[in-house]
Protein backbone atom coordinates (compact mmCIF):
# COMPACT_ATOMS: atom_id res chain seq x y z
CA UNK A 1 0.00 0.00 0.00
CA UNK A 2 1.38 3.38 -0.91
CA UNK A 3 1.24 6.25 1.49
CA UNK A 4 -2.07 8.09 1.23
CA UNK A 5 -0.23 11.37 0.69
CA UNK A 6 1.57 10.07 -2.40
CA UNK A 7 -0.95 9.76 -5.24
CA UNK A 8 1.54 8.26 -7.72
CA UNK A 9 0.75 4.81 -9.05
CA UNK A 10 3.54 2.74 -10.65
CA UNK A 11 1.97 3.61 -14.04
CA UNK A 12 2.10 7.31 -13.21
CA UNK A 13 5.74 7.04 -12.24
CA UNK A 14 6.61 5.18 -15.46
CA UNK A 15 4.77 7.68 -17.65
CA UNK A 16 6.38 10.60 -15.90
CA UNK A 17 9.88 9.15 -16.04
CA UNK A 18 9.35 8.62 -19.76
CA UNK A 19 8.32 12.21 -20.23
CA UNK A 20 11.41 13.32 -18.35
CA UNK A 21 13.67 10.90 -20.21
CA UNK A 22 14.92 9.27 -17.01
CA UNK A 23 15.15 5.53 -16.48
CA UNK A 24 14.48 5.48 -12.75
CA UNK A 25 13.76 7.74 -9.83
CA UNK A 26 17.35 7.45 -8.73
CA UNK A 27 18.40 8.77 -12.11
CA UNK A 28 16.83 12.09 -11.16
CA UNK A 29 19.40 12.48 -8.40
CA UNK A 30 22.46 12.16 -10.62
CA UNK A 31 23.52 15.67 -9.61
CA UNK A 32 24.14 14.38 -6.09
CA UNK A 33 27.59 12.73 -6.03
CA UNK A 34 27.27 9.04 -5.18
CA UNK A 35 29.49 9.29 -2.16
CA UNK A 36 27.13 11.85 -0.63
CA UNK A 37 24.09 9.62 -0.89
CA UNK A 38 22.74 8.00 2.22
CA UNK A 39 22.53 4.49 0.79
CA UNK A 40 20.57 3.03 3.69
CA UNK A 41 17.08 3.43 5.10
CA UNK A 42 16.70 6.12 7.74
CA UNK A 43 16.69 4.84 11.30
CA UNK A 44 13.13 5.84 12.16
CA UNK A 45 10.23 3.95 13.71
CA UNK A 46 8.34 1.89 11.10
CA UNK A 47 5.41 3.48 9.27
CA UNK A 48 2.18 3.59 11.26
CA UNK A 49 -1.26 3.41 9.68
CA UNK A 50 -3.74 6.02 10.86
CA UNK A 51 -5.43 3.75 13.39
CA UNK A 52 -2.14 2.82 15.01
CA UNK A 53 -0.94 6.41 14.79
CA UNK A 54 -3.96 7.86 16.55
CA UNK A 55 -3.91 5.19 19.26
CA UNK A 56 -0.23 5.78 19.92
CA UNK A 57 -0.48 9.55 20.04
CA UNK A 58 -3.62 9.45 22.17
CA UNK A 59 -1.77 7.31 24.67
CA UNK A 60 1.08 9.78 24.65
CA UNK A 61 -1.26 12.72 25.17
CA UNK A 62 -2.96 10.85 27.99
CA UNK A 63 0.35 10.85 29.84
CA UNK A 64 -0.09 14.59 30.24
CA UNK A 65 -2.32 15.40 33.20
CA UNK A 66 -4.80 17.95 31.88
CA UNK A 67 -8.04 17.00 33.62
CA UNK A 68 -7.95 20.11 35.80
CA UNK A 69 -7.29 23.64 34.55
CA UNK A 70 -3.87 24.83 35.68
CA UNK A 71 -3.61 27.53 38.33
CA UNK A 72 -0.41 28.74 36.79
CA UNK A 73 -0.09 31.52 34.20
CA UNK A 74 3.34 33.12 34.21
CA UNK A 75 3.17 33.86 30.52
CA UNK A 76 0.77 31.13 29.32
CA UNK A 77 -2.80 31.72 30.44
CA UNK A 78 -5.54 29.07 30.69
CA UNK A 79 -8.64 30.60 29.14
CA UNK A 80 -11.81 29.37 27.56
CA UNK A 81 -11.56 29.18 23.81
CA UNK A 82 -15.08 28.94 22.35
CA UNK A 83 -15.42 25.87 20.11
CA UNK A 84 -16.63 28.10 17.30
CA UNK A 85 -13.11 29.60 17.04
CA UNK A 86 -11.50 26.23 16.35
CA UNK A 87 -14.18 25.29 13.84
CA UNK A 88 -13.78 28.53 11.91
CA UNK A 89 -10.01 28.34 12.11
CA UNK A 90 -10.02 24.88 10.57
CA UNK A 91 -11.55 26.13 7.32
CA UNK A 92 -9.01 24.90 4.81
CA UNK A 93 -8.90 28.20 2.95
CA UNK A 94 -7.52 29.91 6.04
CA UNK A 95 -5.58 27.00 7.40
CA UNK A 96 -3.75 25.85 4.31
CA UNK A 97 -3.05 29.17 2.65
CA UNK A 98 0.37 30.71 2.88
CA UNK A 99 1.69 34.24 3.14
CA UNK A 100 -0.58 36.43 1.01
CA UNK A 101 1.93 37.11 -1.78
CA UNK A 102 -0.89 37.04 -4.33
CA UNK A 103 -3.41 39.37 -2.74
CA UNK A 104 -6.22 38.74 -5.24
CA UNK A 105 -6.64 35.20 -3.91
CA UNK A 106 -5.73 35.98 -0.32
CA UNK A 107 -8.25 38.65 0.62
CA UNK A 108 -9.55 36.44 3.43
CA UNK A 109 -6.15 36.27 5.12
CA UNK A 110 -5.47 39.93 4.39
CA UNK A 111 -8.73 41.38 5.64
CA UNK A 112 -8.46 39.26 8.80
CA UNK A 113 -4.90 40.54 9.23
CA UNK A 114 -6.14 44.12 8.93
CA UNK A 115 -8.72 43.31 11.59
CA UNK A 116 -6.00 41.83 13.85
CA UNK A 117 -3.90 44.97 13.43
CA UNK A 118 -6.92 47.06 14.35
CA UNK A 119 -7.66 44.98 17.45
CA UNK A 120 -4.08 45.34 18.60
CA UNK A 121 -4.23 49.12 18.11
CA UNK A 122 -7.55 49.42 19.93
CA UNK A 123 -6.39 47.35 22.89
CA UNK A 124 -2.98 49.02 23.17
CA UNK A 125 -4.12 52.55 22.34
CA UNK A 126 -1.34 52.96 19.77
CA UNK A 127 -1.37 53.98 16.10
CA UNK A 128 0.08 51.08 14.14
CA UNK A 129 0.55 47.35 14.66
CA UNK A 130 2.20 44.66 12.58
CA UNK A 131 0.87 41.30 11.45
CA UNK A 132 2.19 39.43 14.52
CA UNK A 133 5.53 38.27 15.92
CA UNK A 134 6.77 34.84 16.95
CA UNK A 135 5.84 35.48 20.58
CA UNK A 136 5.93 38.10 23.33
CA UNK A 137 9.59 37.63 24.18
CA UNK A 138 10.91 38.17 20.66
CA UNK A 139 8.50 41.09 20.21
CA UNK A 140 10.12 42.69 23.23
CA UNK A 141 13.62 42.03 21.89
CA UNK A 142 12.68 43.57 18.56
CA UNK A 143 11.20 46.59 20.32
CA UNK A 144 14.48 47.09 22.16
CA UNK A 145 16.36 46.90 18.85
CA UNK A 146 13.97 49.43 17.34
CA UNK A 147 14.70 51.77 20.23
CA UNK A 148 18.46 51.47 19.78
CA UNK A 149 18.15 52.14 16.04
CA UNK A 150 15.81 55.09 16.53
CA UNK A 151 17.64 56.84 19.36
CA UNK A 152 21.15 55.83 18.39
CA UNK A 153 21.71 54.93 22.03
CA UNK A 154 22.94 51.66 23.45
CA UNK A 155 21.42 51.10 26.87
CA UNK A 156 18.19 49.25 27.60
CA UNK A 157 16.76 49.65 31.10
CA UNK A 158 14.36 46.86 32.01
CA UNK A 159 12.40 46.25 35.19
CA UNK A 160 13.28 43.03 37.01
CA UNK A 161 9.54 42.47 37.26
CA UNK A 162 9.34 41.90 33.52
CA UNK A 163 8.93 38.22 32.54
CA UNK A 164 12.28 36.48 33.21
CA UNK A 165 11.97 34.39 30.04
CA UNK A 166 11.50 37.57 28.03
CA UNK A 167 14.54 39.14 29.66
CA UNK A 168 16.67 36.09 28.84
CA UNK A 169 15.59 36.31 25.22
CA UNK A 170 16.44 40.02 25.19
CA UNK A 171 19.92 39.19 26.44
CA UNK A 172 20.36 36.58 23.71
CA UNK A 173 19.23 38.96 20.97
CA UNK A 174 21.47 41.76 22.18
CA UNK A 175 24.55 39.55 22.65
CA UNK A 176 26.37 40.66 19.57
CA UNK A 177 25.08 44.22 19.25
CA UNK A 178 27.18 45.63 22.06
CA UNK A 179 24.10 47.06 23.71
CA UNK A 180 23.92 47.12 27.49
CA UNK A 181 21.00 45.78 29.52
CA UNK A 182 20.46 47.22 32.98
CA UNK A 183 17.89 45.66 35.34
CA UNK A 184 16.03 47.79 37.86
CA UNK A 185 14.67 46.11 41.01
CA UNK A 186 11.09 46.12 42.25
CA UNK A 187 9.91 47.11 45.68
CA UNK A 188 7.95 45.27 48.35
CA UNK A 189 4.73 46.19 46.60
CA UNK A 190 5.93 44.37 43.49
CA UNK A 191 6.10 47.55 41.41
CA UNK A 192 9.28 48.79 39.76
CA UNK A 193 11.38 50.89 42.13
CA UNK A 194 10.94 54.31 40.54
CA UNK A 195 13.86 55.93 42.34
CA UNK A 196 16.17 53.18 41.15
CA UNK A 197 14.71 53.62 37.69
CA UNK A 198 15.35 57.34 37.69
CA UNK A 199 18.97 56.71 38.68
CA UNK A 200 19.44 54.11 35.94
CA UNK A 201 17.93 56.16 33.11
CA UNK A 202 20.11 58.78 31.47
CA UNK A 203 21.12 60.22 28.11
CA UNK A 204 22.52 56.88 27.00
CA UNK A 205 19.22 55.05 27.54
CA UNK A 206 17.42 53.95 24.39
CA UNK A 207 14.38 52.49 26.14
CA UNK A 208 12.73 51.69 29.43
CA UNK A 209 10.83 48.38 29.55
CA UNK A 210 8.03 47.74 32.04
CA UNK A 211 5.55 44.86 32.41
CA UNK A 212 1.89 45.74 32.24
CA UNK A 213 0.85 43.72 34.17
CA UNK A 214 4.30 42.50 35.19
CA UNK A 215 5.40 38.89 35.61
CA UNK A 216 4.51 39.23 39.29
CA UNK A 217 0.90 39.88 38.32
CA UNK A 218 1.18 43.47 39.53
CA UNK A 219 -0.14 46.42 37.53
CA UNK A 220 3.15 48.28 37.31
CA UNK A 221 3.74 52.05 37.42
CA UNK A 222 3.71 52.57 33.68
CA UNK A 223 2.84 56.30 33.62
CA UNK A 224 5.60 57.17 36.07
CA UNK A 225 8.14 55.01 34.26
CA UNK A 226 7.17 56.61 30.97
CA UNK A 227 7.65 60.08 32.43
CA UNK A 228 11.16 59.18 33.56
CA UNK A 229 11.96 57.76 30.13
CA UNK A 230 10.55 60.72 28.26
CA UNK A 231 12.56 63.16 30.31
CA UNK A 232 15.76 61.41 29.25
CA UNK A 233 14.70 61.13 25.60
CA UNK A 234 14.25 57.37 25.84
CA UNK A 235 11.38 55.29 24.47
CA UNK A 236 8.94 53.48 26.76
CA UNK A 237 8.11 49.88 25.95
CA UNK A 238 5.24 48.14 27.77
CA UNK A 239 5.08 44.35 27.89
CA UNK A 240 1.79 42.47 28.28
CA UNK A 241 1.73 38.68 28.56
CA UNK A 242 -1.89 38.47 29.78
CA UNK A 243 -3.75 40.34 27.04
CA UNK A 244 -7.14 40.01 28.75
CA UNK A 245 -5.87 42.63 31.19
CA UNK A 246 -6.14 45.16 28.38
CA UNK A 247 -9.90 44.73 28.62
CA UNK A 248 -9.87 46.32 32.06
CA UNK A 249 -6.69 48.34 32.32
CA UNK A 250 -6.05 51.66 30.63
CA UNK A 251 -4.33 51.34 27.26
CA UNK A 252 -0.53 51.44 27.48
CA UNK A 253 -0.50 53.98 24.65
CA UNK A 254 -2.62 56.32 26.75
CA UNK A 255 -0.20 56.02 29.64
CA UNK A 256 2.95 56.95 27.76
CA UNK A 257 4.11 53.78 26.03
CA UNK A 258 5.77 54.44 22.66
CA UNK A 259 5.78 50.74 21.82
CA UNK A 260 3.59 48.02 23.29
CA UNK A 261 4.50 44.36 22.90
CA UNK A 262 3.47 41.04 24.30
CA UNK A 263 1.31 38.13 23.31
CA UNK A 264 -2.37 37.65 22.48
CA UNK A 265 -2.16 33.96 23.45
CA UNK A 266 -5.04 34.53 25.88
CA UNK A 267 -7.35 35.20 22.96
CA UNK A 268 -8.25 32.16 20.90
CA UNK A 269 -5.12 30.14 21.60
CA UNK A 270 -4.71 27.40 24.20
CA UNK A 271 -1.56 27.09 26.24
CA UNK A 272 -0.31 24.24 24.02
CA UNK A 273 2.76 23.52 26.16
CA UNK A 274 4.13 26.96 25.43
CA UNK A 275 3.64 27.49 21.72
CA UNK A 276 2.66 28.65 19.20
CA UNK A 277 0.97 31.92 20.12
CA UNK A 278 0.78 35.33 18.44
CA UNK A 279 3.20 37.95 19.64
CA UNK A 280 1.99 41.48 19.03
CA UNK A 281 3.89 44.69 18.25
CA UNK A 282 2.23 48.11 18.30
CA UNK A 283 3.79 51.56 18.18
CA UNK A 284 3.26 55.24 17.62
CA UNK A 285 3.07 56.29 13.97
CA UNK A 286 6.54 57.82 14.09
CA UNK A 287 8.09 54.37 14.43
CA UNK A 288 6.30 52.82 11.48
CA UNK A 289 9.28 52.51 9.18
CA UNK A 290 11.42 50.91 11.86
CA UNK A 291 8.82 48.29 12.76
CA UNK A 292 9.70 44.69 12.02
CA UNK A 293 7.40 42.14 10.50
CA UNK A 294 4.71 42.07 7.89
CA UNK A 295 2.12 44.84 7.70
CA UNK A 296 -1.21 44.78 5.90
CA UNK A 297 -2.65 47.94 4.37
CA UNK A 298 -5.88 48.94 2.66
CA UNK A 299 -5.96 50.01 -0.96
CA UNK A 300 -8.19 49.70 -4.04
CA UNK A 301 -8.13 47.35 -6.98
CA UNK A 302 -8.27 48.25 -10.64
CA UNK A 303 -12.03 48.61 -10.39
CA UNK A 304 -11.94 50.89 -7.40
CA UNK A 305 -13.06 48.27 -4.89
CA UNK A 306 -11.44 48.34 -1.47
CA UNK A 307 -9.00 45.50 -0.82
CA UNK A 308 -5.94 44.66 1.24
CA UNK A 309 -2.27 43.99 0.51
CA UNK A 310 0.96 43.45 2.38
CA UNK A 311 2.70 46.79 2.28
CA UNK A 312 5.78 48.74 3.32
CA UNK A 313 7.69 45.60 2.43
CA UNK A 314 10.92 47.47 1.87
CA UNK A 315 11.58 47.27 5.62
CA UNK A 316 11.77 43.51 5.36
CA UNK A 317 14.45 40.90 4.70
CA UNK A 318 13.36 39.83 1.23
CA UNK A 319 14.10 43.32 -0.06
CA UNK A 320 16.55 44.95 2.35
CA UNK A 321 18.39 41.70 3.07
CA UNK A 322 21.26 42.59 5.39
CA UNK A 323 19.81 46.06 6.03
CA UNK A 324 16.39 44.84 7.05
CA UNK A 325 14.73 45.94 10.30
CA UNK A 326 14.56 42.27 11.25
CA UNK A 327 15.04 38.86 9.63
CA UNK A 328 11.49 37.75 10.44
CA UNK A 329 9.68 36.08 7.55
CA UNK A 330 7.02 33.60 8.70
CA UNK A 331 5.13 35.06 11.66
CA UNK A 332 2.22 33.67 13.70
CA UNK A 333 -0.58 34.21 11.17
CA UNK A 334 -2.92 31.41 12.18
CA UNK A 335 -2.55 32.11 15.89
CA UNK A 336 -3.30 35.77 15.20
CA UNK A 337 -6.38 34.72 13.23
CA UNK A 338 -7.60 32.69 16.20
CA UNK A 339 -7.22 35.77 18.39
CA UNK A 340 -9.05 37.91 15.84
CA UNK A 341 -11.96 35.46 15.78
CA UNK A 342 -12.14 35.29 19.55
CA UNK A 343 -12.02 39.08 19.88
CA UNK A 344 -14.74 39.38 17.24
CA UNK A 345 -16.95 37.13 19.33
CA UNK A 346 -16.15 38.97 22.55
CA UNK A 347 -16.62 42.43 21.15
CA UNK A 348 -16.89 45.56 23.26
CA UNK A 349 -19.11 44.23 25.99
CA UNK A 350 -17.75 40.69 25.99
CA UNK A 351 -14.14 41.76 26.47
CA UNK A 352 -15.04 44.10 29.32
CA UNK A 353 -17.04 41.33 30.95
CA UNK A 354 -14.31 38.73 30.47
CA UNK A 355 -11.72 41.03 32.00
CA UNK A 356 -13.98 41.88 34.91
CA UNK A 357 -14.69 38.19 35.44
CA UNK A 358 -10.97 37.43 35.58
CA UNK A 359 -10.45 40.12 38.15
CA UNK A 360 -13.32 38.81 40.25
CA UNK A 361 -12.11 35.20 40.14
CA UNK A 362 -8.65 36.31 41.20
CA UNK A 363 -10.24 38.25 44.06
CA UNK A 364 -12.09 35.09 45.10
CA UNK A 365 -8.77 33.24 45.03
CA UNK A 366 -7.18 35.87 47.22
CA UNK A 367 -10.01 35.54 49.71
CA UNK A 368 -9.93 31.74 49.69
CA UNK A 369 -6.14 31.67 50.06
CA UNK A 370 -6.49 34.22 52.84
CA UNK A 371 -8.90 31.98 54.71
CA UNK A 372 -6.45 29.11 54.25
CA UNK A 373 -3.74 31.24 55.84
CA UNK A 374 -1.81 32.38 52.75
CA UNK A 375 -1.15 36.08 52.20
CA UNK A 376 -0.19 37.87 48.95
CA UNK A 377 3.54 38.46 48.68
CA UNK A 378 3.14 41.87 47.00
CA UNK A 379 0.82 44.67 48.00
CA UNK A 380 0.58 46.28 44.56
CA UNK A 381 -2.67 46.09 42.56
CA UNK A 382 -3.10 42.93 40.52
CA UNK A 383 -5.29 41.81 37.62
CA UNK A 384 -5.76 38.02 37.59
CA UNK A 385 -2.41 36.78 38.85
CA UNK A 386 -0.98 37.01 42.34
CA UNK A 387 1.88 35.51 44.31
CA UNK A 388 0.96 33.94 47.66
CA UNK A 389 3.32 32.92 50.42
CA UNK A 390 2.56 29.23 50.86
CA UNK A 391 5.54 28.37 53.00
CA UNK A 392 7.30 25.98 50.64
CA UNK A 393 6.21 26.67 47.08
CA UNK A 394 8.16 23.82 45.45
CA UNK A 395 6.72 21.30 47.92
CA UNK A 396 3.18 22.53 47.28
CA UNK A 397 3.68 22.25 43.53
CA UNK A 398 5.03 18.69 43.85
CA UNK A 399 2.22 17.64 46.18
CA UNK A 400 -0.57 19.07 44.01
CA UNK A 401 1.01 17.56 40.90
CA UNK A 402 0.16 14.15 42.36
CA UNK A 403 -3.49 15.28 42.32
CA UNK A 404 -3.13 16.37 38.70
CA UNK A 405 -3.14 20.09 39.51
CA UNK A 406 -0.53 22.51 38.18
CA UNK A 407 -0.52 24.75 41.23
CA UNK A 408 1.47 27.81 40.22
CA UNK A 409 4.95 29.06 39.45
CA UNK A 410 7.41 29.15 42.39
CA UNK A 411 8.95 32.61 42.14
CA UNK A 412 12.09 31.46 43.92
CA UNK A 413 13.20 29.84 40.67
CA UNK A 414 13.67 33.25 39.08
CA UNK A 415 14.04 35.48 42.12
CA UNK A 416 16.16 33.54 44.65
CA UNK A 417 16.92 36.76 46.56
CA UNK A 418 13.31 37.65 47.27
CA UNK A 419 12.59 37.68 51.02
CA UNK A 420 9.68 35.31 50.36
CA UNK A 421 11.64 33.31 47.77
CA UNK A 422 10.91 29.95 49.34
CA UNK A 423 7.20 30.46 49.80
CA UNK A 424 6.15 32.64 46.87
CA UNK A 425 3.81 30.82 44.50
CA UNK A 426 2.45 32.78 41.51
CA UNK A 427 -1.13 31.70 40.86
CA UNK A 428 -3.64 32.75 38.24
CA UNK A 429 -7.43 32.60 38.30
CA UNK A 430 -9.41 33.13 35.12
CA UNK A 431 -12.93 32.58 33.87
CA UNK A 432 -12.18 28.84 33.69
CA UNK A 433 -11.69 28.64 37.44
CA UNK A 434 -15.16 28.42 38.94
CA UNK A 435 -15.71 29.65 42.51
CA UNK A 436 -15.95 26.00 43.62
CA UNK A 437 -12.69 25.13 41.94
CA UNK A 438 -11.00 28.13 43.53
CA UNK A 439 -12.22 27.04 46.95
CA UNK A 440 -11.03 23.47 46.35
CA UNK A 441 -7.63 24.71 45.22
CA UNK A 442 -7.05 26.83 48.30
CA UNK A 443 -7.95 23.89 50.52
CA UNK A 444 -5.64 21.60 48.52
CA UNK A 445 -2.77 24.01 48.95
CA UNK A 446 -3.43 23.99 52.66
CA UNK A 447 -3.36 20.22 52.59
Amino acid at each position, binding site marked *: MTLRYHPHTPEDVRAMLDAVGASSLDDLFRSIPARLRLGRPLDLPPAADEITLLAELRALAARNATDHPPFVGAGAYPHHVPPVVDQLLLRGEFFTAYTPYQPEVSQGTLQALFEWQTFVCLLTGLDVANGSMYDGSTAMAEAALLATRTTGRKKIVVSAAVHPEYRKVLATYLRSTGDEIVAVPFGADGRTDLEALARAVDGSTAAVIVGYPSFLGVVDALPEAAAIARKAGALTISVTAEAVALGLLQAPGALGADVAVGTFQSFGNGVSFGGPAPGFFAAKEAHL*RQMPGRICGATVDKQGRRGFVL*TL*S*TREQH*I*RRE*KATSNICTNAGLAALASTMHLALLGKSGLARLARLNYERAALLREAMGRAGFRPVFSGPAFNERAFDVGDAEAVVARLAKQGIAAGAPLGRWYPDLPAAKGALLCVATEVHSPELVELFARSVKG
Partner: protein
Amino acid sequence: MNFPDDVRYTKDHEWVRAKGGQFVVGITDFAQDQLGDVVFVELPDVGDTVKKGESFGVVESTKAVSELFAPVSGKVVEVNDPLTDAPETINEDPYEEGWMIVVQPSDPKEAESLMDAAAYRAFVEEQE
Protein backbone atom coordinates in the same frame (compact mmCIF):
# COMPACT_ATOMS: atom_id res chain seq x y z
CA MET B 1 13.68 58.09 -22.33
CA ASN B 2 15.02 61.52 -21.47
CA PHE B 3 18.69 62.50 -21.49
CA PRO B 4 18.80 66.29 -21.02
CA ASP B 5 21.94 68.07 -22.02
CA ASP B 6 22.12 70.51 -19.16
CA VAL B 7 23.14 67.89 -16.58
CA ARG B 8 25.97 65.42 -16.06
CA TYR B 9 25.45 61.79 -15.10
CA THR B 10 26.89 59.16 -12.77
CA LYS B 11 27.18 55.41 -13.30
CA ASP B 12 24.68 55.02 -10.46
CA HIS B 13 22.10 56.95 -12.47
CA GLU B 14 22.15 60.22 -10.58
CA TRP B 15 22.27 63.55 -12.42
CA VAL B 16 23.98 66.77 -11.39
CA ARG B 17 23.15 70.30 -12.57
CA ALA B 18 25.43 73.22 -11.88
CA LYS B 19 23.50 76.19 -10.54
CA GLY B 20 25.26 79.29 -9.31
CA GLY B 21 28.27 77.51 -7.86
CA GLN B 22 26.16 74.80 -6.31
CA PHE B 23 25.01 71.42 -7.60
CA VAL B 24 21.42 70.21 -7.80
CA VAL B 25 21.15 66.40 -7.61
CA GLY B 26 18.47 63.91 -8.60
CA ILE B 27 17.97 60.53 -10.28
CA THR B 28 17.63 60.01 -14.00
CA ASP B 29 14.65 59.08 -16.11
CA PHE B 30 16.20 55.65 -16.66
CA ALA B 31 16.53 55.18 -12.90
CA GLN B 32 12.94 56.07 -12.13
CA ASP B 33 11.75 53.85 -14.94
CA GLN B 34 13.76 50.91 -13.64
CA LEU B 35 12.52 51.45 -10.11
CA GLY B 36 8.87 51.74 -10.93
CA ASP B 37 6.46 53.75 -8.78
CA VAL B 38 8.47 55.54 -6.11
CA VAL B 39 6.72 55.29 -2.76
CA PHE B 40 9.29 56.68 -0.38
CA VAL B 41 12.46 58.70 -0.38
CA GLU B 42 14.84 59.26 2.52
CA LEU B 43 16.99 62.36 2.17
CA PRO B 44 19.67 63.92 4.38
CA ASP B 45 19.16 67.06 6.45
CA VAL B 46 20.31 70.53 5.50
CA GLY B 47 23.79 70.89 6.93
CA ASP B 48 24.79 67.24 6.48
CA THR B 49 28.02 66.44 4.68
CA VAL B 50 28.05 64.16 1.65
CA LYS B 51 30.99 62.44 0.05
CA LYS B 52 31.35 61.56 -3.61
CA GLY B 53 30.49 57.91 -4.20
CA GLU B 54 28.95 57.43 -0.77
CA SER B 55 25.29 56.93 0.03
CA PHE B 56 23.30 60.03 0.94
CA GLY B 57 19.87 58.51 1.06
CA VAL B 58 17.50 55.92 -0.24
CA VAL B 59 14.68 55.75 -2.76
CA GLU B 60 12.08 53.00 -2.58
CA SER B 61 9.47 51.47 -4.80
CA THR B 62 7.12 48.84 -3.40
CA LYS B 63 9.56 46.05 -4.33
CA ALA B 64 13.01 47.58 -4.37
CA VAL B 65 15.25 49.81 -2.35
CA SER B 66 17.98 51.79 -4.01
CA GLU B 67 20.69 53.76 -2.37
CA LEU B 68 21.43 57.25 -3.64
CA PHE B 69 25.12 57.95 -4.19
CA ALA B 70 26.53 61.46 -4.01
CA PRO B 71 28.00 62.56 -7.35
CA VAL B 72 30.06 65.24 -5.61
CA SER B 73 31.30 65.93 -2.10
CA GLY B 74 30.15 68.87 -0.06
CA LYS B 75 27.50 70.21 2.25
CA VAL B 76 23.78 69.84 1.78
CA VAL B 77 22.27 73.35 1.57
CA GLU B 78 18.76 72.52 0.37
CA VAL B 79 16.50 69.47 0.51
CA ASN B 80 13.35 68.95 -1.55
CA ASP B 81 11.06 68.27 1.42
CA PRO B 82 7.78 68.04 -0.56
CA LEU B 83 9.10 64.77 -1.99
CA THR B 84 8.25 63.10 1.33
CA ASP B 85 4.54 63.61 0.74
CA ALA B 86 4.68 63.37 -3.03
CA PRO B 87 7.34 60.81 -3.96
CA GLU B 88 5.60 60.28 -7.32
CA THR B 89 7.15 63.56 -8.43
CA ILE B 90 10.36 61.63 -8.95
CA ASN B 91 8.61 59.45 -11.52
CA GLU B 92 6.74 62.29 -13.15
CA ASP B 93 9.49 64.89 -13.43
CA PRO B 94 12.86 63.42 -12.46
CA TYR B 95 15.01 66.26 -13.79
CA GLU B 96 13.06 69.29 -12.59
CA GLU B 97 10.45 69.06 -9.81
CA GLY B 98 11.94 65.72 -8.75
CA TRP B 99 15.25 67.26 -7.67
CA MET B 100 16.45 65.86 -4.36
CA ILE B 101 19.23 67.91 -2.77
CA VAL B 102 21.41 70.91 -3.48
CA VAL B 103 25.08 70.57 -2.53
CA GLN B 104 27.64 73.29 -1.85
CA PRO B 105 30.63 71.47 -3.33
CA SER B 106 33.95 71.17 -1.51
CA ASP B 107 35.68 70.34 -4.79
CA PRO B 108 33.68 71.45 -7.88
CA LYS B 109 36.18 69.70 -10.14
CA GLU B 110 34.69 66.36 -9.04
CA ALA B 111 31.81 66.99 -11.44
CA GLU B 112 34.11 67.13 -14.45
CA SER B 113 34.71 63.39 -14.50
CA LEU B 114 30.97 62.68 -14.77
CA MET B 115 29.39 61.58 -18.06
CA ASP B 116 27.67 63.92 -20.45
CA ALA B 117 24.29 63.07 -21.98
CA ALA B 118 25.74 61.20 -24.96
CA ALA B 119 28.06 59.10 -22.85
CA TYR B 120 25.32 58.30 -20.36
CA ARG B 121 22.90 57.36 -23.13
CA ALA B 122 25.50 54.95 -24.51
CA PHE B 123 26.12 53.59 -21.01
CA VAL B 124 22.40 52.97 -20.48
CA GLU B 125 21.98 51.31 -23.85
CA GLU B 126 24.79 48.97 -22.93
CA GLN B 127 22.94 47.94 -19.77
CA GLU B 128 19.83 46.80 -21.62
